[in-house]
């Protein structure tokens, strides 16, 4: 029993509540936030290593045996996501320390960040479908708080749409949980997997699975459920946008992976063509949206949508390799996207706007910023040896290997469009001549640059040491797709149904 699995949940929870209680002592609150994030980071790295060496880690919440209580399960997918989430959170907290108006602090910005981390971590670790819903709500609620904190008109308008459309998605999730319990009679994912696998004629189960697709899809911002994202993501402070881009849609993607990759594999095979169609549309429509924008953050926001398409493509390939490739891509995008938001945010701080037209001349003035931005967009576009290349390569390799040529072509084509729209920012903000004397504008301090730069370096290092990364993602994909292994880890070798029957005898 890996009871330590609760640490990444208890730590942000205590951190956040204590930070609220001690909110008046700024330093104490900050220290608590930082300590808790570092704790999560250290733990998740250790957990990843543990999962890599010893396989899945399982703990039963409250000590109740598996299909009845709430199981916590860490496999490769969960551990990797947890790691990336902690890294991003650390970068975001650091960036916020340096950039954010202190007023935010008085209104519980940092506790909200921690609670977001809590929700995300819970979602990555839980092995219970309803518990997953609860963590979804935790992270959603925290994101609602964060996206509206600041109270500009844009934040309020965007936040309202963000919130309502997300509520629709999470309501669908809840309905799906209910229907699933009605049909399958259980909530434990391993048990669901076992029971669903034993059904010969899925019938209504397909509709239920589709409802999960709708629910997670709307969280992940797939076409045609992505509209909430571009309308709201560019409104809050950059740090918030960055962490959102890194974590929120990815939780939806994670859930799709978990539920379709492990729990409902039969349905995954059914839905694979649909998923690939959605993936292609999401890639293309997202990138077209980005091409239409003239604002750094809005461009990046639309790219989030586009890149979710790649993640979905990994799922739609419906194989361990596809899932591994999709995961690799997703982990990469989480990091790089946040980095780009940070660096773009630094530019925004200089010019006081995120519109690219009035900017210019940054390559001369802030060469370090320019270098990291350029590396970032290279990574995003999948240029070797940065991490993006491996994600793209893996997806294309699996796509081609499985004969999914069309989606592979779309994926490849989308990446050049991605590059194009990112070059637009590069051209306008960095290369273009400044319109006026730049000497009056503020300079970029290390606090503004470092978090983004560090993440870009992570991307570079991840690319150079891609072998480890690929090994882990392959492990994760294999574990994810290994239904029997999952059931065995959660409920023991005989499976959940055996436990169920013996408990009720």
């Amino acid at each position, binding site marked *: 029993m890996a009871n330590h699995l609760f640490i990444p949940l208890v730590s942000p929870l205590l951190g956040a509540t204590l930070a609220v209680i001690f909110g008046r002592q700024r330093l104490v609150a900050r220290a608590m936030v930082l300590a808790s994030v570092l704790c999560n980071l250290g733990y998740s790295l250790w957990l990843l290593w543990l999962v890599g060496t010893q396989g899945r880690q399982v703990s039963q919440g409250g000590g109740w045996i598996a299909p009845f209580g709430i199981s916590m399960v860490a496999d490769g997918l969960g551990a990797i996501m947890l790691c990336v989430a902690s890294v991003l959170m650390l970068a975001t907290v650091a960036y916020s320390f340096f950039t954010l108006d202190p007023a935010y602090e008085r209104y519980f910005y940092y506790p909200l960040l921690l609670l977001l981390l809590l929700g995300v971590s819970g979602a990555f670790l839980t092995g219970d479908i309803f518990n997953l819903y609860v963590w979804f709500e935790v992270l959603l609620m925290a994101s609602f708080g964060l996206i509206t904190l600041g109270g500009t008109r844009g934040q309020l308008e965007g936040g309202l749409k963000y919130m309502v459309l997300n509520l*629709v998605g999470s309501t669908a999730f809840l309905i799906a949980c209910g229907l699933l319990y009605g049909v399958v009679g259980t909530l434990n994912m391993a048990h669901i997997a076992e029971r669903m696998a034993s059904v010969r004629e899925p019938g209504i189960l397909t509709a239920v699975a589709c409802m999960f697709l709708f629910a997670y899809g709307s969280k992940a911002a797939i076409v045609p459920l992505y509209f909430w994202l571009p309308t709201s993501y560019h409104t809050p402070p950059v740090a918030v946008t960055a962490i959102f881009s890194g974590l929120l849609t990815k939780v939806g993607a994670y859930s799709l992976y978990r539920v379709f990759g492990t729990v409902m594999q039969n349905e995954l095979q059914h839905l694979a063509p649909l998923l690939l169609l959605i993936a292609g549309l999401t890639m293309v429509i997202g990138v077209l949206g980005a091409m239409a924008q003239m604002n750094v953050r809005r461009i990046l926001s639309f790219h989030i949508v586009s890149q979710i398409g790649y993640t979905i493509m990994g799922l739609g390939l419906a194989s361990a390799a596809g899932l591994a490739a999709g995961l690799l891509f997703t982990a990469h995008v989480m990091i790089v996207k946040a980095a780009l938001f940070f660096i773009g945010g630094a530019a925004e701080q200089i010019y006081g706007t995120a519109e690219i037209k009035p900017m210019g001349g940054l390559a001369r003035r802030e060469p370090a910023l320019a270098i990291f931005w350029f590396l970032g967009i290279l990574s995003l576009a999948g240029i070797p040896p940065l991490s993006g290349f491996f994600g793209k390569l893996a997806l294309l390799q699996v796509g081609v290997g499985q004969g999914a040529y069309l989606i592979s072509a779309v994926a490849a084509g989308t990446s050049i469009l991605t590059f194009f729209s990112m070059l637009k920012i590069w051209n306008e903000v960095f290369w273009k001549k400044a319109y006026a004397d730049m000497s009056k504008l503020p300079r970029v301090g290390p606090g503004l640059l470092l978090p983004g730069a560090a993440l870009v370096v992570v991307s570079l290092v991840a690319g150079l040491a891609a072998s480890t990364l690929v090994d882990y993602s392959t492990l994760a994909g294999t574990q994810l797709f290994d239904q029997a292994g999952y059931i065995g880890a959660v409920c023991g070798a005989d499976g959940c149904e055996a436990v169920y029957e013996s408990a009720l005898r």
Partner: protein
Amino acid sequence: MVLLLAIAIGSLFGGAIYLMLRRSVVKLILGLVLLSHGVNLLIFVMGDGVRRGAPPIVDAQGLPPPGVADPLVQALILTAIVISFGLTAFVLALAYRANQAVGTDDLDDMASTDRL
């Protein structure tokens, strides 16, 4: 029983969707409230039978009354109710502030963040 309930649930969802497609913020929020009622009832029906008069309270020997209702869905719904209460409160506050910012409760006037 189930048919009757199913119709009630359907009407809750239908009403919620209709309200949420309106332009007024208030109607939208009321739609959300109805939506959560619909979901709660839906989960309730999914329990191990909808039963009369046997709440899931066991006697001193730990034996449930005959024909007891499914306690699990009740616990799930409780959780869902409380969560949706938190969400409703938040959306209310948000709508209130948006109202203040925009000066109207017409959602169509809150389209500035998407303007190209």
